[in-house]
């Protein structure tokens, strides 16, 4: 490669950490019971990784490429609509 990296450790390409598959860390997976889900989007607001999303007139969805399975969404859900299920069982 003849092109050098930009001096000073500067990057002109932001947000590139998104290639990291942090979902591979997961031990417990959040499973949403869509019948119980209103949706109130509390899970989405509290998700530290910002990967629980809700679009109007659509169901709530979790991006499992990133979800580390911390369980905050399940713990904070006021309706108990999210269950943490062990991966691979």
């Amino acid at each position, binding site marked *: 490669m003849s092109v050098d990296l930009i001096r000073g450790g500067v*990057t002109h390409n932001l947000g590139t950490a998104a290639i990291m598959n942090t979902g591979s860390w997961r031990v417990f997976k959040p499973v949403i019971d869509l019948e119980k889900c209103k949706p109130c989007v509390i899970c989405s607001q509290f998700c530290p990784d910002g990967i629980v999303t809700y679009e109007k007139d659509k169901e709530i969805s979790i991006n499992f490429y990133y979800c580390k399975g911390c369980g905050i969404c399940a713990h904070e859900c006021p309706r108990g609509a999210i269950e943490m299920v062990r991966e691979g069982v």
Partner: protein
Amino acid sequence: MSEVFLSSSEVAAHAARLARVEVVSAYPITPNTGVIGALTELIETGQMNATAVNVEGEHSAASVCAGASSAGVRAFTATCGQGMAFMHEVLWMASGMALPMVVAVTSRGVGSPQTIVSDFSDIMMERDASYLQFYSENAQEVVDSIIMAYKIGENENVLLPSFVCLEAFRMTHTYEPVEIPDQEKVDSYLPPYRPKHAFYDTDYPVQQGTGSVPDFTYRKYQQHMGLINAKKVIKDACREFEEVFGRKYGLVDAHKVEDAEVVVVSMGCVSAVSRRLVNEYRKKGVRIGSLKVRVFRPFPEEEIKEALSGAKKVIVIDRFNSPGSHGVLYTEVRSALYDVKPTIISYIVGHEDIYSADMEKMIDKALEKDEGFEEWYNLFQPDEFWVKASGSDRYEQLKKGETVERDDVKDTSDLMAKGLNLCPGCIPYLVCRKVLTTLGKNTVVPYATGCVMAATSGAVLSGWKVPAGHYCFTNVASAASGIKAALEKRGKDYNVVAIGGDGGIADIGFQALSGAVERGHNIIYVCYDNEAYMNTGVQRSSTTSYLAATKTTLTGKKVHKKDIARIMEAHGIYVATMLPCFLKDMEKKILRAKEVDGPAFLHILSPCPTGWAFDPALGIEISRLAYETGAFILYESYKGERTISRLPKERKPIEEYLKLQGRFSHLTADQIQEIQKDVDERFMQMT
């Protein structure tokens, strides 16, 4: 003597114990944390009779040691990299004051760019600080060198402090069999420290730390002569060490150099590789030897000249290159060989790991060529991935004056990158996202060293979607001041948000914060307070809660949490305390911080599943309990007027908050009552 299986970090702590060090002070920086952890354990379990002073920065760690040494006891610290740089002024002061303390240097490169891997840029930065410099190769040499360093440094003809170098990770995190000497033998080798030159005693008062004009160079000459005298003192100390402990050391370690035509010269643990390879090459009939420079200051010029006088070719391996010149070891070896003039080959390996295969390539190439040469061995070459990830193509377009398409920052729904290497359930990740999405894309983020920095600045990968920059651990607020001043000059009305943890804001970064706030720069300071040094592996900070266990407070912190928010209130600025469980309240306060004229300080209690030892699902729940028990009070304050944001109708007992956290699992019923009383008192006082 007992043979045990330990890392060089743990062994360094044992050496301090055996040397009967009485004051230790260190500040967590990867990878010195193993030394600090081992020292804490030795002291808290009563195996070592020393006082550990857990400080707010390396400048203080070195100062505590210098202060202790000037008061007449043995003192010990460990540091590296940026931390050693922050010690700089104090290190020179200590050698000038002839204080024979020992600094274990878990050597690591000095940034930017930040690295935690070893090269000698930190210790070489202090090359001329008038310290004895010992470079160890393995854990055994670490324990032996530290014990010897006290004996040599305390000699009346030397009276200087020492660096004992143990390389980052290659040694600090590598376990190996090592003989820990018996205390009795160490006592016979190293008598108690009874300084005749520097100590404090009211029956025999002395004054220390002179100012100087006419005698300045004379004083420097005294330091120089201390090091020159040290050559003989080191030889004597090594001879005596061999008699007592049976292990042989010297200024250099020459291996098969007597008839060698080629000699490999190196320092530190790479010397083990070269010695092993020398044996292999000898089997093939190559007349080769190796020379380890064990002591770099004083520089063993005669010993090097003697060992290399018969060599036709000398290969020097450097872990640090003096920019704009050459490898530091190479330069000094070449100078020592001025009369001999062999062909000299210089390899600069920086922080690269050097395995046998690498060393073979290096030796083979040197054997092939007739002329001397200089080569940066195994220099990283950015591949297509790196070039693309760093946006080099955009930079090229920009240089040509072309319009650059920024599709990477088009989506502004989340201004933090996904996929950050933060622990599951990390609350600061949530906090940073909330701050940025509330303020919007016209925001510039300088951020302090810490968990968020490590996760957002990993090699070439970026964790932000707004302009952002990492400076040091100490200076986020002052760097932000410069950014704000420059943006104002450029007519850019951006939000400048300085983000840091409790370390970067309330501890090591506090001086910069207080200064910047006093100057009135219109900056928002965000402190995600997870109540300890989490990025280095959970060491106590000044904001760690009373009685909470950390790696440096195994049985609980014995002093109270620094109330950083109230200290900031005293600066007369906008201050708000926030909890992650109340996101609307947080949003309101972030917007208020933006609107107020002048600086604003936002303090967010950020439960940390890793450091506080709780189920990662409970981060929000624990912050809610902090509110419901009154452990954390939500308020705003502007120009000294405090307004409570909200109060629980009935406060829950503090035990509800404590019992979910492993860091409080050791508490007795009485201690819980004591904390309850503290919480009650503070609650009454504040509300």
